[in-house]
């Protein structure tokens, strides 16, 4: 499986470790009143879709950047990859 690293081009998936669902980027605000329940969902619950899935991959044996990889869980086809830092900036509207 080859991952299209946005900076380094196609890299073997073996160079990466997988953390899982990219929803982990959306850490709940610890000051909100329902923070406890929100963190429980955040830590434990997953959509686990059959089909397109966005997930966090770490380029451990490469440039050690975090990527958000969009992948199909049925065909294992990789649809796209972007730097997690870019995704995070977009989420926070700081770009």
């Amino acid at each position: 499986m080859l991952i299209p690293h946005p900076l380094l081009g196609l890299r073997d998936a073996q160079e990466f470790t997988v953390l899982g669902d990219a929803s982990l980027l959306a850490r709940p605000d610890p000051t909100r009143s329902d923070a406890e329940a929100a963190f429980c969902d955040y830590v434990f619950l997953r959509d686990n879709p059959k089909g397109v899935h966005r997930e966090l991959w770490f380029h451990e044996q490469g440039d050690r950047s975090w990527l958000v990889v969009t992948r199909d869980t049925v065909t294992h086809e990789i649809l796209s990859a972007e730097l997690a830092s870019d995704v995070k900036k977009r989420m926070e509207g700081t770009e």
Partner: protein
Amino acid sequence: MTRFSGFRVLKEALTGHNGWAPLWRNPAPKPAYDFVIIGGGGHGLATAYTLAKTFGQANVAVLEKGWIGGGNVGRNTTIIRSNYLLPGNQPFYELSMKLWENLEQDTNFNSMVSQRGIINLIHSDAQRDAYRRRGNAMMLSGAGARLLDVDQLRQMVPFLNYDNARFPIRGALMQSRAGTARHDGVAWGYARGADSRGVDIIQNCEVTGFRVEGGKVQGVETTRGFIGAGKVGVAVAGHSSQVMAKAGLRLPIESHALQAFVSEGLKPTIPGVITFGAGHFYVSQSDKGGLVFGGDIDGYNSYAQRGNLPVVEDVAEGGMALMPMIGRARLLRSWGGIVDMSMDGSPIIDRTPIDGLYFNGGWNYGGFKATPAAGHVFAHLLATDTPHETATAFRFDRFNRGYVIDEKGVGATPNLH
């Protein structure tokens, strides 16, 4: 149901084998049942069997989207054991072990349960301490355990590479009552036993949705039409999230591919099951002679029922490190199954927020050994609405209450358990 016996085999041999009948019927679904079980794997079939046999319920259907035994129950490496550490787990698995010991008498079906023992290898003093503790927990639960030193181990399994530079073998924890069983035989035995007690096993019937009114389940939508139900039990292993999403529930579960491998048939070499946890490899030998082995899950979410090559390589390396002679055996087949990895590595058997809807899942790579007990306690929950005494820890709310059952001690992650 005509009983199987040695006498029957002889009689059929002398009369041209004309007397054998199909082991279960192929009924069309009725409009409604008291109990509908979704998933014709080991757990679903064992649950229906127990509902009929122990709880006297005959108005039961098992709905299977493919054919029974086509899921993980027919794809696993057939290891059965009760060598857990934590109090939430061990009594349940020990109940399962006891049910395995009597399974064939109970179902009158040869499931080839073979208590050939399991050996978990030890490579360091720290690991010996951890395994001694685990062995003590096993003895307290009545499961039995033995701590083997290297000389005892060498007598049993002389072919291991004891002087591996990275993981020298220093001993093992052994459970003599553990072993293997014929996985399809388990599914077929339960199916035959359930069918003969009136359970309808309906294959090629995929559940596509739930009908819920006023917070209570009324039945299920299927590819063969609506089927009414008093209570619905879900036991769909790798598809747990998919099916429960149709009821609006999100689970602490991810689906991952686990691979298994079998070599050509060889003369008897491996006496029991050997696990080399440090090297991500385990092996046993089937009665046909094939070496049956496996290792880790592939590591990322998958519904593909096939594995990736890096794990093939990893497992082969583990095998070569443990027992170099395996390099001379040719690989016959490899395959994958989709396992329901839970966030603490332990299962869930519980009610759901929807009245009449019950869930059994999160079995990770170890639900085959649980089959008899899972059927037993899930049927108990469905029939009585109270959890069985050995399954009180397998609740949904253990995650938000902080009572996770983390055997491995790795925290909330589905891809390490």
